[in-house]
């Protein structure tokens, strides 16, 4: 079995996001970038399945500018076997990502495609679902547990009401939740070895995919500043304020 893992380069989750003055986007110059956290869970799970002898190869793929390669390198350092970097500059939308991934799937013919449930930069949560539709493959989203059973997967999903367990046929798409596993650290010797693993470079423009924007971004803004709170002296005053000023009770 072969597993394709899609990983995305995003602004590190610890960095405080700053909006560009002209409202055209966020500032990414000299900002620490990392792999989208649930994508790390996706890679970890794929590598675990391989280590359990149930998969022969894990291929990591990323789509983006030159530096997005670092994200593939990181996946290689924690156990992926080889990488693919689809080069494209600028922001691309989930549908374009899904279409590029579809081309990669057609070329690589994996049995499973893993990715994070959503990316922490745009929070779209669409790529996995769109890829599933494009390929006409079953999907299991928000996975917090995955069991490989012969030609099937048993996936436990995080849903509003609790946990849902579904069984799907392979080939399939699985999007991963942060609860799925604890991603391992890349060890220093493995980072060294990862430098020698191959990364295939593709150009998005050569794949015959329409990557043009379908969404017009009007403006990026910071959320409004929260007003400073006040201290009330008694419960009575609090109730009075909630009733008369906030009008919530």
């Amino acid at each position, binding site marked *: 079995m072969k597993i394709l893992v899609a990983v995305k380069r995003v602004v*590190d989750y610890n960095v405080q996001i700053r909006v560009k003055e002209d409202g055209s986007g966020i500032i990414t110059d*000299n900002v620490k970038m990392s792999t989208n956290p649930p994508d790390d869970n996706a890679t970890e799970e794929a590598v675990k399945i391989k280590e359990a002898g149930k998969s022969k190869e894990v291929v990591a793929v990323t789509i983006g500018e030159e530096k997005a390669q670092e994200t593939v390198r990181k996946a290689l350092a924690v156990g992926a076997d080889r990488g693919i970097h689809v080069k494209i500059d600028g922001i691309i939308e989930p549908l374009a990502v899904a279409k590029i991934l579809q081309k990669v799937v057609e070329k690589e013919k994996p049995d499973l495609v893993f990715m994070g449930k959503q990316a922490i930069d745009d929070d779209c949560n669409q790529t996995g679902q769109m890829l599933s539709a494009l390929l006409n493959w079953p999907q299991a989203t928000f996975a917090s547990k995955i069991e490989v059973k012969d030609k099937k997967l048993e996936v436990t999903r995080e849903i509003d009401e609790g946990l849902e367990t579904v069984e799907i046929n392979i080939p399939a798409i699985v999007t991963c939740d942060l609860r799925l596993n604890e991603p*391992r650290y890349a060890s220093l010797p493995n980072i060294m070895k990862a430098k020698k693993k191959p990364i295939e470079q593709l150009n998005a423009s050569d794949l015959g995919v329409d990557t043009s924007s379908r969404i017009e971004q009007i403006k990026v803004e910071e959320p409004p500043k929260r007003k400073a709170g006040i201290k009330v002296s008694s419960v009575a005053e609090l109730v009075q304020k909630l009733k008369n000023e906030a009008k919530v009770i």
Partner: protein
Amino acid sequence: MSREAMEYDVIIVGGGPSGLTTAIKLKQLDSSLNICLLEKASEIGAHILSGNVFETRALDELLPNWKDLNSPIKTKVKKEKFLFLSKTKSLSWPTWLLPNVQQNHKNYIISLANLCRWLGEQAEALGVEIFPGFPASEILYNEDGSVKGVATQDMGIDKDGNKKDSFEPGIDLIGKVTVFAEGCRGHLGKQLIKKFELDKGKDPQQYGIGFKEIWEIDDKNHEEGLVMHTAGWPLDNNTYGGSFIYHAENKQVFLGYVIGLDYKNPYLSPFDEFQRFKTHPVIRKIIEGGKRISYGARALIEGGFQSLPKMFMPGALLIGCDAGTLNMPKIKGSHTAMKSGIIAAETIFESIKENKDLSIFEDKFNKSWIYEELYRARNVKPSFNWGLIIGIIFTGIDQILFRGKLPFTLKHKHADHETLKPANKMQKIEYPKYDNVITFDKTSSVYLTGTNHTDNQPVHLQLKDPNLPISYTLEKFDEPAVRYCPAGVYEIQKEKDINKFVINSQNCIHCKTCDIKEPSQNINWVTPEGGGGPKYGNM
């Protein structure tokens, strides 16, 4: 369990200006050398904080064509001001009356973090193996006592010291020579200085704490290339310190404050002095209507020549501010750190190729301009023990008339942890409330640093005696850690009338002030799990 080991020609600990310079210079001298550089931050530059007005002298020697290499050194200093502040007034000091060392017209306003990122790219292009997110946590020794290398930290240990599922053991990195370039108060450098008595016969090292904020300001207040320094208010005559205001590119102003850690009043809060400083009419006018986008703090070296330890030992070199090469009156340490890196590389090259002893470092150092600079600067900082006014008069005579060649050397008498007076003998300081426009609290400030440490890991701020903060330090000094820490790591919490000393180590921005200033040297800063700490952008 025995750890995996990897061998290199040279191991460099720390990806700041001195470590990166060593790596680049070594590769220039011999591209076949295997060099490994460790950095505790998640990426090169993320733990770097500096003013910074940059003198290019060392860079000119290292990469003479730096202007063609798309370096982030762009904003030339165009104008300079030096102000004395009283509470509401300011007095401008004519720049021609400033000592030579404080004139900056040939220098550049830069972000040192960005310079390091760029130096990191140059080093990698030359084949240096750089590993960010891997702190060196332990020094390895050979049987003969010489330094063998370092071990990287074990990853995935919980707060009780047990291995988590994600446990990944550290590895031994073994080098013919190991270079320690951790910056001011490096935790391994500290051990080396002690073990090899590198500071024997030297004055105690002197430190300061430096704050920096980056503001995006109104066009009308911005004057790209303007460099401004102040002395005086809000500090009293007996406290050493001053501010910097650098107008950088993109309408940004680098605003900072440095306070000598030899201050005496345990009630002094360096953070609050800095916040208060911004409310001075002259400063408020610059930043009003602007937006604070970054905050950070870091301890720095102030001891200079008298306190500079021996920088070589069997198997290793100690360079940059891990030793203490900052030039205090110049308020600059990047060029000297880089020069010490160049000398280190030349030393190592000869040591490996011609089997020479590392002690040749000293002769090279003493014959270079860095020695001359530090020698001439040596009397400035200690003269401020006599107070700001006499310090300035003396500095004028020493630096302008005698150009640092007076035939005597003033001593640093005390280490910074010895200078606090008992709380009951000193006056409490009431600091103004934060207005969240010009001044801010520690919590919202630390938020801007992007600091994080993985949950559930051992506390990296170790107390030698866990009872001492409450039984002694609180009693005698009203626990100054609460105030000297710029990140709100330390708190005294009262639970049912019992005082508890709380360490919020996840807030730590790796400034090392606690390790320096704690009156009983009870706090030992060790490396947390790799990648932890601040994520500074263009600091």
